[in-house]
C-alpha cells in the first residue's frame, strides 16, 4: 500500500492510529520521567503533590536538588572527562582506519575489516570482562616479574576509557568511512599537481571535507560513552561515572532527584544532537 494507490478509508485510519500509538509509546516513559522531576513529593509517583523546583535547586534535606548533591555532580564530571577522552581517541583512530581502508589495498584486507566490525557484535559485558581479565593478567605478570605495581591496570577510569574506546572506535570508523567514500579523489590529485605535498593535500583538501563527519563521530562517541553502562559496570573502580551512580541510587529506591538528573541528561543530549544536525547541514 502506497499513497498513490487508493485504499479503504478504514484501513488508512487504523494505520494512522497505529503509528500515533507507537509514538505515544516512545514518548511516554520519557514524559513521565520529566514530569515527576517537578513533583513536590519524596517519591517519583502519584499522587501529584504540587509543582516544585526543589529537586533542581533545593539545598536542605530531605529535598536536596541536583545542583547541591555533591556525589551526582562529581560523577557528571567523571562521565564528562571519560566521554571526552573516549571521543578524542576513537575519532583519531577512526579517521586513521577510514583512510587505511579507503586508500590501501593490502593482504587480509577483508579479514581485517570483519575483525574491525566484531566489537559491534560482542556483548558489552563480555568486552568488559575480557579487558578486565587481560589487564589483571598483565598487572599481575608485571608485579611478579619486575615488581612494578601499575595502578592504571586495575579497575578504574583508565580501564573504563579503554573499554568504551574498544567498541566506540568501530562506530567512529564507520561514520567517517561513509563520508570519505563519497570524496572525489581528483580534488586531492589536483592539489598534488599544483605542487602540494601529499600531507598538505590531505590536510588542506581532504580533512576540511571530512570535518562534519568527524564532528558527527565525536558527538555520537561522546553520547555513547556518556550513557554506556554494560562495559563500564565491569571495569569501574572507586570513581563512578554517572550511569553507575544513578544505578546504585535506583537500587536503593528512587527519589525525584533521579528524575531531575534524567531531565538534565535529556536536555543535554537533545542539545548535542541539535548541534550535530546543524553541523551536518552546513
Amino acid at each position: 500500500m502506497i499513497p498513490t494507490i487508493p485504499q479503504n478509508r478504514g484501513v488508512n485510519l487504523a494505520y494512522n492510529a497505529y503509528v500515533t500509538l507507537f509514538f505515544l509509546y516512545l514518548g511516554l516513559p520519557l514524559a513521565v520521567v520529566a514530569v515527576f522531576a517537578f513533583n513536590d513529593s519524596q517519591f517519583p509517583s502519584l499522587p501529584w503533590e504540587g509543582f516544585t523546583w526543589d529537586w533542581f535547586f533545593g539545598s536542605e534535606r530531605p529535598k536536596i536538588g541536583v545542583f547541591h548533591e555533591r556525589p551526582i555532580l562529581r560523577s557528571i564530571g567523571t562521565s564528562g572527562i571519560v566521554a571526552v577522552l573516549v571521543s578524542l581517541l576513537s575519532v583519531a583512530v577512526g579517521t586513521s582506519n577510514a583512510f587505511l581502508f579507503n586508500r590501501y589495498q593490502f593482504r587480509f584486507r577483508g579479514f581485517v575489516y570483519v575483525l574491525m566490525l566484531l566489537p559491534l557484535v560482542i556483548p558489552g559485558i563480555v568486552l568488559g570482562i575480557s579487558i578486565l581479565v587481560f589487564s589483571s593478567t598483565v598487572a599481575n605478570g608485571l608485579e611478579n616479574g619486575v615488581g612494578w605495581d601499575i595502578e592504571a591496570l586495575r579497575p578504574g577510569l583508565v580501564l573504563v576509557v579503554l573499554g568504551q574506546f574498544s567498541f566506540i572506535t568501530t562506530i567512529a570508523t564507520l561514520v567517517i568511512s561513509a563520508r570519505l567514500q563519497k570524496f572525489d579523489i581528483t580534488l586531492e590529485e589536483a592539489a598534488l599537481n599544483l605542487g602540494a605535498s601529499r600531507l598538505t593535500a590531505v590536510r588542506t583538501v581532504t580533512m576540511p571535507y571530512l570535518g562534519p563527519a568527524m564532528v558527527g563521530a565525536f558527538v555520537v562517541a561522546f553520547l555513547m560513552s556518556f550513557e554506556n553502562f554494560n562495559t563500564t559496570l565491569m571495569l569501574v573502580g572507586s570513581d563512578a561515572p554517572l550511569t553507575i551512580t544513578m544505578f546504585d541510587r535506583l537500587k536503593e529506591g528512587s527519589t525525584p532527584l533521579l528524575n531531575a538528573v534524567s531531565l538534565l541528561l535529556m536536555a543535554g543530549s537533545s542539545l548535542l544532537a541539535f548541534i550535530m544536525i546543524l553541523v551536518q547541514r552546513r
Partner: protein
Amino acid sequence: MGGRVVRTEARLGFILLLTPLVLWLSLLIVIPHIDMFLVSLRERVGVRQYQTSLANYMTFLGEPLYLWTFLRTAVMSVLATAITLLIAFPVSYYIAKMVKGRLQAALFLLCLVPFWVSELVRTFGWMILLRETGVFSNLLQWAGLVDGPVEMLYNDAAIMVGLVYTSMLFMVVPLVTTLESLDDSVIEAGYDLGGSGPSILREIVIPHAMPGIVSGSIVVFMLSLGNYLTPRILGGKDSLWFTELIYSQFIVRFNWELGAAFGFMLLFLSSAIVWAVLRMTGQTLEKTMG
C-alpha cells in the same frame, strides 16, 4: 628516483595508518578474548595453584540453574527480537513510504530522540509507569477497572516491555533505510499485475527489506542478550538473566574462572545465532553492518 620516494612515502603512510588499528584490535579485542578463554580453562586446585581442565564448563552444564538461565535468556532474546520486528515494521514502512518530505524527516528524527537518552533513564521511566504506586496502576484504579493497586513490575512481561523499547531504534533505522530504497513504481507494478496488499508485501516488500530485517534483528538480539540493566531493574527475583550470573561470578563471588566460562558461553551463543541467521538469509557481516 622520484618514483621510489613516492613508494617509500606510501609505505610509511600505510604503516602509520595500520599501527593504531593493529594496536586497538590486538590489545583490546583479540588478546583479551584469548586470555579470557585461557582463564576459563583454569581449574583452581589449591591456593594459587591451577590446572588446565574443562571443569568450569562442566559446572555450567551440570548446574540446572545456570543452564536454565542460559536457555531462558536466549529464548527471551529471540522473542524480544521478533516482537520488536513486528512492532517496528509497519512504523518503518509508514515513515519510508506513506509520508514524504518534512513530515518524513520529522517522524524519523522523532524515532531517534528517545535513544539519545541513557538506557537507565528509559528503564527508570518504565519503572515509574509500571510499579504498584505507578501511573498505570493509578489510572486503572481511577477508571474503576481494579479495586486496589496493581504491581506490574518485577516479572517477565515487564522485562519484555523494557527490552523491546530499548532496542526499537536499532530496528527502525535499518528498516527505514532499506524500505526507502524500494521504488514506488515497483509496488505500483505489483498492483497493476493484479497483486493484492498481502501478496505484494510477501513477494516484493519483505524480500527487498531483507538486509534491513537481518541487520536490525542481529543488533536487537545482541543487545537483548547482553542486556544487564533492564532485567536487573524491571525483572523480579525469579527472572534471572545470564549477564547477572556473569556479574555475580566476577564481582560478588570473585570466581573469575567460572565467570570467564560464562562469558565465553554468552559470546558463543551470540556468535552462533548471528552466524546462523547470516547463513540462512545469505547475508554477510560486511554487508549488514558496514
